[in-house]
C-alpha cells in the first residue's frame, strides 16, 4: 500500500542512521560492505554491469561523496555518505503506482517489494536525495533496506544485528538506532552534536540525521598550535642570527 502509515503516534519507532561528517574518513568500507551484504540478501541480486570493463555500471545503495566548504584557514574537505534517509513523508512511496514501495508501520523502514515493482522509475524521480538506483538487469528499483534482514535476524550474533554499513565503519562515524525514542543513544547524539536534516525545506522529514563537522581548533590537548607562517623564523637571539648567517652562506 503506497499510502503512508500514521507515524505521529507517541512512541512511534523510527529506525534510522546518524552519520558523523566529522569522523568519516571516506574509506568506502560502508559502501562496499553494503554492496556485499545486499547482493546476497533482501536486495539480491544487486547487479553490476561490466564491473571489470572500461565503463562499469551498477546499483549501489550507499555512495560516498567528497565536498569542500569554507575559505582560507576555515576551508575543509569532508566525506559525505549518501543513502536512503527513510523519510517520514517519502514521496517515493506515494507516487508508486503498484504498492511495491512502502513504509513499514512498525519501524518506519522504507522498502521496495522486488516481486511487485514494475520498474517505472517514478519513485527515483520523486526522491530529492538520489537514494534509489534502478537495477537494469533485475528490472526493479533498489534502495537501502536499513539491512532489515540483519537487524532482526536472530541467526546473527547480537552485535551483528545492525546495518552492514554501521558494522563496517572503522571510525564509528555511522550510528544506528531508534530516532523516534528521544532517550535512545542516537537521539542523544543528535541532540548533543546538533544533528541536522538534509533539505529540510522540502518537507520530506528525513529520519536519518547528519552530524556537522566539529569547528576547527587551534589547540590540541590544551597546547596552542604554532601558526605555520611563524615556524622556523627563530627568536632573534645571537645564536639564531649566527645560524641564520651560516644558512645564508651555505645556501
Amino acid at each position, binding site marked *: *500500500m*503506497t*499510502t503512508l502509515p500514521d507515524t505521529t503516534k507517541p512512541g512511534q519507532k523510527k529506525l534510522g542512521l546518524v552519520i558523523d561528517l566529522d569522523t568519516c574518513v*571516506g574509506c568506502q568500507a560502508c*559502501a562496499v560492505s553494503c554492496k556485499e551484504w545486499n547482493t546476497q540478501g533482501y536486495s539480491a541480486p544487486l547487479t553490476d554491469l561490466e564491473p571489470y570493463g572500461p*565503463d*562499469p*555500471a*551498477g*546499483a*549501489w545503495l550507499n*555512495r*560516498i*561523496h*567528497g*565536498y*569542500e*566548504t*569554507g*575559505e582560507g584557514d576555515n576551508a575543509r*574537505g569532508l566525506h*559525505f555518505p*549518501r543513502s536512503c534517509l527513510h523519510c517520514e513523508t517519502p*514521496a517515493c*512511496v*506515494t*507516487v*508508486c*503506482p*503498484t*504498492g*511495491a514501495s512502502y513504509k513499514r508501520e512498525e519501524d518506519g523502514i522504507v522498502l521496495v517489494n522486488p516481486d*511487485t*515493482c*514494475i*520498474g*517505472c*522509475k*517514478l519513485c*527515483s*524521480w*520523486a*526522491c*530529492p*536525495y*538520489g537514494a534509489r*538506483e*534502478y*537495477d*537494469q538487469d*533485475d*528490472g*526493479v528499483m533498489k534502495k537501502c533496506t536499513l539491512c532489515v534482514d540483519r537487524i532482526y535476524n536472530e541467526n546473527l550474533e547480537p552485535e551483528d544485528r545492525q546495518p552492514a554499513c554501521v558494522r563496517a565503519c572503522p571510525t564509528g562515524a555511522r550510528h544506528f538506532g531508534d530516532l523516534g525514542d528521544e532517550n535512545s543513544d542516537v537521539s542523544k547524539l543528535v541532540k548533543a552534536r546538533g544533528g*541536522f536534516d*538534509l*533539505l529540510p*525545506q*522540502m518537507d520530506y522529514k528525513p529520519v536519518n540525521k*547528519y552530524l*556537522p563537522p566539529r569547528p576547527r581548533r587551534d589547540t590540541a590537548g590544551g597546547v596552542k598550535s604554532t601558526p605555520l607562517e611563524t615556524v622556523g623564523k627563530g627568536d632573534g637571539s645571537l645564536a639564531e642570527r649566527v645560524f641564520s648567517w651560516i644558512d645564508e652562506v651555505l645556501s
Partner: protein
Amino acid sequence: MHPAYSVILFTTASGAGYGLLALLGLTGASHGSASDFWFGAVSMLVALGLITAGLLSSTFHLGHPERAWRAFSQWRSSWLSREGVLAVATYVPACLFGLLWVLPGSNETLLAVLGIITAILAMVTVICTAMIYASLATIRAWRHWLVVPVYVIFSIATGAVLLFALASVFGRSGIPALGVITIVALVLAGIAKLVYWIGIDNMKPIYTMGDATGLGGDVRQWELPHTSENYIQSEMGFRVARKHARKLRMIVGACLLAALVLVWAAFGFEGDAAPVFAVLAVLLVSVAAVVERWLFFAQARHVVSLFYGEQSV
C-alpha cells in the same frame, strides 16, 4: 531529466488521441450521429488507435511490463495509478459512444450523454498524465502552474488538427466551428508554451548545494563517489538538450505557426488541396508536440543534481 522516447511517444500520441476523442464526443453531443459512417468509424479508430499505441509504448520503458496491471491498484495516492485507471475506464464510454455515433438511428440523448462523459474522462486522463510530473517537488520546472494547462491545450490542439484533417479527407474542411476551434487551440498552445518557457527561464534557484548537504554556505564538490556515470546521473542529470534549447523552441514555434497557416489555407480552399494542407498540418503539429515534450524532460533539472556538482536549482 532523461527524455525516454517511449514516454515522449506515449504522452504525445495518447495526448493527441484523447484530444481527438474529446472533440468527437463533443461533436456527437452537439450534432447527433456521424454525418458519414466512414468518417465516424475512421475518426474513432484513429483516436482509440493513438491512445492504445501510446499506452502500449508507455509499458516499453518498464523493467517488468508483464506486471503493468498492478499499476491500477494505488489510485489513492499515485497520479500514475490514477492515469492508468482513467485511461482504461475511458475505453468503456468511448467504445459505446463510437458504436452509437456511427450507427444510424441512435438515441440522441444517450449519444449526447456518452459523448460528454467520454470527453470529460479523456481530458481528466490527460490531466492525470500531467499531474504525474506536476506533483514532483523535486523538479521545479514541472511545478510551474502551466504544466497541466499545456498538457491539456497540446492534447486539444493536436486532436483538433487531426480532426480537421480527417474532416478534410472526407471533404468537410469548411466546417466553421471546427476551423475556429483548431486555430484557437493552436494559438493557445503557442502562447501557453511561450509563457511557460519564459517562466522557467526566470525561475530563481531556491535550493543550493549547501542546503542539500546541510553544510550551508559555499560548498564545492571535490570527489565523485564513483568513477563512471551511475543511474542517478544518467536519469536525472541529462544535459544534452540545454545547449540546443533555443533552436528547438524556435522549431516548435515555427511548426505551430506553419500548421496554423495550413489549417487556415485548407479552411479557405475547401477544394482538392484542402486534405493535403490539413495532413501536412498534422505532421507539423506532431513535430511541435514531440519536440516540445522532449524539451519538457530535457530542460527539467532535478534537485538531486545538487549532490553531483550543480550549485543551485
